[in-house]
């Protein structure tokens, strides 16, 4: 609604529209520009040709390949092999995830600064400098170890363990356990440090030592989040377990590697269907358990 001339004239001069705030936008523009540059550079760098992809050759190649996978090989031997592979993959993911929790919890507790040297549990008495330095070292060391465990990708751990103990599902279990242990350890550590400290203060006031405060104050508060994260990682691990087989660590991955190398496309499709079934199953189980327990 536009103001009439008289209204504009009688309005006090101070009522002009304030200018748009600037400065804020400069960062945004810079970041966006940088981002676009990154994308363009990467695109050219990968030598990718969108035309090649969408064009007749690319799409047709892909479609032809995918089409050639059908129909899936549903013979008894293939199905049985896929079934065994599926069970193996499930087993690898389950044991690996459980072991990961076993690794993560102690390391997370050791790395929690609020348990070792900082926060409300340490206000009454200063730690002796030697003890304090030692505790900082332990906490930093635990965190560094977790960082190492999780930065090395599972597939690399699998390579290493296959190298050490040979082929089969066991190296896959170890690989998942170590890598996921690192991931969970970091997540668990954050949960522990974010826990409500007021009940801990109350427990300390009854004369409880740190271990008992941990049992009655920290773990009960942290447990639901622990379970939630662990179940979520199990969903990730069932996919990872399927893949570790590529480097010889058993399960469906190993069989897929074989079928691809031998150009057995129909069996490949069966195996892919098996992976899909397994992944969907674990996803559903995990969601159900998370609803029930948390």
């Amino acid at each position, binding site marked *: 609604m536009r103001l009439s001339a008289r209204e504009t004239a009688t309005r006090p001069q101070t009522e002009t529209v304030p200018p748009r705030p600037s400065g804020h936008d400069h960062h945004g523009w810079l970041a966006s520009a940088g981002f676009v540059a990154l994308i363009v550079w990467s695109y050219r760098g990968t030598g990718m040709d969108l035309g090649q992809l969408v064009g007749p050759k690319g799409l047709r190649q892909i479609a032809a390949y995918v089409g050639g996978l059908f129909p899936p090989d549903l013979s008894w031997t293939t199905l049985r092999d896929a079934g065994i592979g599926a069970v193996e993959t499930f087993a690898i993911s389950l044991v690996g995830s459980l072991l990961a929790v076993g690794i993560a919890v102690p390391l997370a507790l050791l790395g929690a600064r609020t348990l070792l040297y900082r926060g409300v549990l340490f206000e009454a008495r200063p730690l002796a400098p030697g003890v304090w330095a030692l505790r900082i070292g332990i906490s930093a060391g635990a965190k560094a170890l977790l960082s190492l465990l999780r930065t090395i990708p599972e597939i690399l751990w699998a390579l290493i363990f296959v190298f050490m103990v040979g082929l089969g599902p066991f190296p896959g279990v170890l690989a998942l356990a170590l890598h996921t242990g690192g991931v969970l350890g970091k997540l668990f550590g954050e949960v522990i440090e974010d826990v409500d400290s007021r*009940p801990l203060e*109350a427990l*300390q006031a*009854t*004369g*409880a030592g740190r271990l*008992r405060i941990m049992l009655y104050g920290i773990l*009960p508060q942290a447990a639901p989040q622990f379970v939630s994260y662990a179940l979520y990682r199990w969903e990730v691990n069932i996919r990872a377990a399927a893949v570790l087989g590529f480097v010889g660590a058993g399960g469906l991955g190993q069989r897929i590697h074989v079928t691809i190398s031998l150009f057995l496309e129909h069996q490949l499709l069966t195996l892919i269907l098996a992976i899909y079934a397994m992944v969907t199953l674990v996803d559903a189980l995990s969601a159900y358990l998370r609803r029930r327990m948390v």
Partner: protein
Amino acid sequence: MTVPGPEYELRELKKVFADGTVAVDGISLTVGAGEQVAVIGPSGAGKTTLFRLLNLTLRPTSGSLGIAGLDMAGLSDQALRRQRQRIGTIYQQHNLVGRLRVVHNVLAGNLGRWSTARALASLWRPRDSAAAWRALVQVGIPEKLYARTDELSGGQQQRVALARVLVQDPSIILADEPVSSVDPSLAMIIVTLLRDVAHESRKTLLMNLHSVDLALGYFPRIVGVRDGRIHFDLARDQVTEELLRGLYAGHRDDELQLERPPDGLNLLGRACRPLPGLAE
């Protein structure tokens, strides 16, 4: 268990926090064994910090703190924990673990005595649930023994905290604004309960109270704290209107509760039961 000499002996106790705030500025106080003392004062006066010093959660910056004749400075870790076990604390709120069942929160009063192994085993199968049961009977909510603590109302949770102190069976009970988050009818019940328990077992009781009426109605000795220092330390009947106004001067919200009906009647005080054995 009678101990010769004062239970609490504070000399020029001072607490300065890392950011420079002087929360407690030279408090000297003596509390005898079995005494009951109410601490009042405006918000931010340093009462909570004082209590955290008294229950050995914080370390004083200077001054000395003695409990039952023992100086609290320079104690070993184990001795410190033993001292803490002799002091039971009740907080205003958020001091229970919500996800645990009431029985575990109540039995946590034993953590100063139990070994870690026993504590762990009790989480699986509660040892001595009979003691927890008896404590809950005393505070009036025995049926909640196996309920999850976060399913209880605020007032009920505060009673669980009380039950925990009963199980701990300390020589000193410190209550830091235990009824500020609780509705008034329940407040009287809780304060009465604490007072009676302390009286029967001859425990020393210090209570931090927001409500002047409750303090004057239930406690024979009132300590007024302002700006980290003791403003007055008197018997109940020596506490006058002017003293109270001086204590809360400048703190509008706290002053409001000093508004009294014109004839100066302390309605609440009249309704309180006097401590048995003490003249009104």
